[in-house]
């Protein structure tokens, strides 16, 4: 049956048909929908894990027990899961394991542009790379067989354009795979030094066998089109090459970027006059070609930055540019921003007003760095706000009382809690603000261990954040409503003044959640508005200055009343006031 599927749904369909029994993931754009779609199949046990390391270790456990398992994560999630990955390469699998990792060239929703192929090389684990939904489906389904045949976890590399592009997939039926028996095997699964040393030999032999397999496997294919130009390409770059050249050049399409074939590449290179390598991000295939003694045109012509397109390819080959028309008037930028009624806005306003240095974290609330709030000083990776403030205050005690860490509920569970243990244990008197909006927001509303619901929306055990913070040694824990600016201000000043570490939980659910009731929009009474622009300091998308007076966009305002509380002239009124 032909269906139009985004790449992530195609992956989930492939994994489902391939006999997947267990999936555990942590959400991360652009990988999130893989697990969301898998959760719709009742014959798969699906879960959100607290972080990617836990997810991959859970998948390892399910594999050990004999079930085909998977996890999905964004590129930076694989950094978190790298610890189990490297040794999972040594133990190999019982039930097949597929690890889906989605890169984000152009940083659509990420903090860096790292290339996950380096992990495949470093961990010595085979990697598949589809270029559209049909391949995402086929490769995912085939990945389990590859995993079990070679006794290895398999990485499936996605990228934003493949994950979030819909294309036509001809779907099939699920293969029912019997659970394999669990057999105790200390030499294979207990990675203490003597065993690990022996397993390393197995890993090296496996890579040799996989390299041999890469010469003829169906993931790599040659499309002949003349002998002048030969292009080695992979992933979404393949689509751009075909868009520009159709069948007029020869193409070696790499569907398994690790391990790369040797003879196939050398023979292809020998069959064309000029060899090119076109790959997004780093020159991984190119480096392999050079190691084989070839001299392709690669990164000297094709940037390691951002996403490619047909334009990138056309320009590199000096093809004529398309005619365009545009306005001469400059078009104001439209950066993303916190929504009208966002509960993060109130607490950020108070932080900005008090000129607090803020070590930030990963989530919607990173947007607090945007003007006019401009309230965030650093964003590194998941959890780094809490760990970072500890080091910051240890290095500069003068900043005590002027610095906080902010972290979302899901990010806190992911990897903030370990940093908080460090704050308590090594006593840095830090103040940590947990922005508890009761959901994993930026990735599109996934449940997490602090929401009380699981991936299916069924009630689940709920982390008691206050009790958790107290139990790790934080005695000062308090909860504020971020819509109440006075309460936020008071809590902030008191906790910053305390001579011990503290946690402020700023608690109010994300305004976009379906069960959150919003209020009728507010109005500005133009007779009372004195144009002081204090409300503008909130950076609310619903408020702007029109003809010298504040104006509220009724289609955006959700009646949170934060601006009304701020107005010194009581000019912002409720309906009917």
């Amino acid at each position, binding site marked *: 049956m032909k269906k139009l599927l985004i790449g992530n749904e195609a992956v989930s369909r492939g994994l489902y048909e391939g006999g997947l029994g267990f999936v555990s993931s942590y959400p991360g754009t652009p990988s999130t929908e893989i697990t969301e779609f898998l959760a719709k199949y009742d014959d798969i046990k699906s879960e959100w894990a607290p972080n990617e390391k836990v997810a991959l270790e859970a998948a390892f456990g399910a594999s050990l027990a004999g079930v085909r398992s998977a996890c999905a994560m964004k590129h930076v999630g694989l950094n978190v899961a790298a610890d189990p990955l490297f040794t999972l390469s040594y133990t190999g699998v019982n039930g097949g394991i597929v690890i889906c990792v989605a890169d984000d060239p152009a940083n659509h929703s990420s903090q860096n542009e790292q290339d996950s192929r380096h992990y495949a090389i470093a961990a010595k684990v085979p990697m598949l790379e589809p270029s559209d939904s049909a391949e995402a489906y086929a490769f995912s389904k085939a990945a389990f067989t590859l995993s079990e045949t070679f006794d290895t976890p398999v990485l499936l590399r996605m990228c934003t354009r493949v994950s979030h592009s819909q294309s036509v997939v001809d779907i099939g039926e699920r293969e029912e795979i019997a659970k394999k028996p669990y057999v105790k095997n200390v030499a294979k699964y207990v990675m203490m030094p003597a065993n690990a040393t022996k397993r390393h030999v197995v890993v090296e032999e496996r890579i040799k066998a996989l390299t041999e397999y890469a010469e003829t496997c169906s993931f790599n294919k040659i499309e002949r089109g003349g002998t002048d130009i030969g292009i080695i390409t992979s992933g979404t770059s393949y689509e751009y090459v075909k868009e520009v050249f159709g069948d007029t050049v020869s193409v070696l399409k790499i569907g398994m970027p690790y391990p790369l074939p040797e003879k196939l590449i050398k023979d292809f290179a020998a069959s064309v006059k000029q060899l090119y390598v076109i790959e997004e991000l780093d020159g991984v295939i190119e480096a392999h070609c050079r190691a084989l003694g070839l001299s392709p045109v690669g990164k000297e012509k094709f940037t390691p930055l951002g996403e490619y397109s047909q334009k990138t390819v056309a320009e590199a080959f000096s093809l004529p540019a398309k005619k365009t028309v545009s306005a001469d008037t400059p*078009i104001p930028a439209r950066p993303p921003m916190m929504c009208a009624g966002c509960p993060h806005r109130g607490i950020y306003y108070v932080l900005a007003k008090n000129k607090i240095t803020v070590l930030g974290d990963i989530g919607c609330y990173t947007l607090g760095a945007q003007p006019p709030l401009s309230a965030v000083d650093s964003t590194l990776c998941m959890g780094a706000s809490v760990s970072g403030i500890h080091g910051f205050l240890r290095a500069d005690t003068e900043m005590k009382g002027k610095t906080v860490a902010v972290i979302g509920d899901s990010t806190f569970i992911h990897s903030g809690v370990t940093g908080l243990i460090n704050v308590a244990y090594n006593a840095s008197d830090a103040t940590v603000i947990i922005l508890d909006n009761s959901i994993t927001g930026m990735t599109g509303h996934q449940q997490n261990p602090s929401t009380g619901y699981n991936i299916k929306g069924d009630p689940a055990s709920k982390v008691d954040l206050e009790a958790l913070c107290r139990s790790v040694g934080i005695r000062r824990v308090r909860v504020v409503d971020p819509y109440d600016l006075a309460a936020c201000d008071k809590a902030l000043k008191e906790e910053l003044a305390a001579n011990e570490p503290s946690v402020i939980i700023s608690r109010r659910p994300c305004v976009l959640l379906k069960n959150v009731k919003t209020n009728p929009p507010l109005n500005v009474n133009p007779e009372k508005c004195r144009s002081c622009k204090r409300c503008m300091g909130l950076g609310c998308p619903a408020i702007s200055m029109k003809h010298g007076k504040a104006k509220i966009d009724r289609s955006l305002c959700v009646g949170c009343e934060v601006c009304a509380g701020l107005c010194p002239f009581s000019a912002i009124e409720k309906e009917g006031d």
Partner: protein
Amino acid sequence: METKNVMIVGVGGQGSLLASKLLGAVLLSEGKDVKVSEVHGMSQRGGSVVTYVRFGDKVYSPVITEGEADYIVSFEKLEAARWAKFLKDGGEIIVNTQEIDPMPVIIGATEYPSDILGELESKGVKIDAIDAYGLAVKAGSGKAANVVLLSRLAKKFDVPYEKWIAAIEKTVAPKFTELNKKAFYLGYNL
């Protein structure tokens, strides 16, 4: 057939994903090869968003680049101007006349351009400007502005009216079917 290119642009949260879903469903049912490239994640939070829809006998690239779009369907005026350079020579912009101030305008760092559509028209760009929000309100809810805009695009294609209605019935939740059918009708017969 040569590959056709449609861009759906707007402000994150305006509901462009439904428009591309309906368009994709109709084109697939017409037996076309289709690719639709969407944006998820951070830019959905009030940022400028774009969806690429490409269809034909065989489509490779999922994206559209400068000078390639046959149609740009814009949910907001400024966004039409932002993406205008993606239009091909002779292409057309279908635009909702709604204005949504971006943050640099809100904080007074710059102004919302006063006659940006007029400027594009003076440069020879074909523009179909409609009050999609107003028509959607007339149909029952401003949320259906996306379907009003889609209906304007539908008129450009050689696909029977009934096929679009069937796609709405198949794709939209039952309680919103009537609203969206009405919005489609109002836009189509404008």
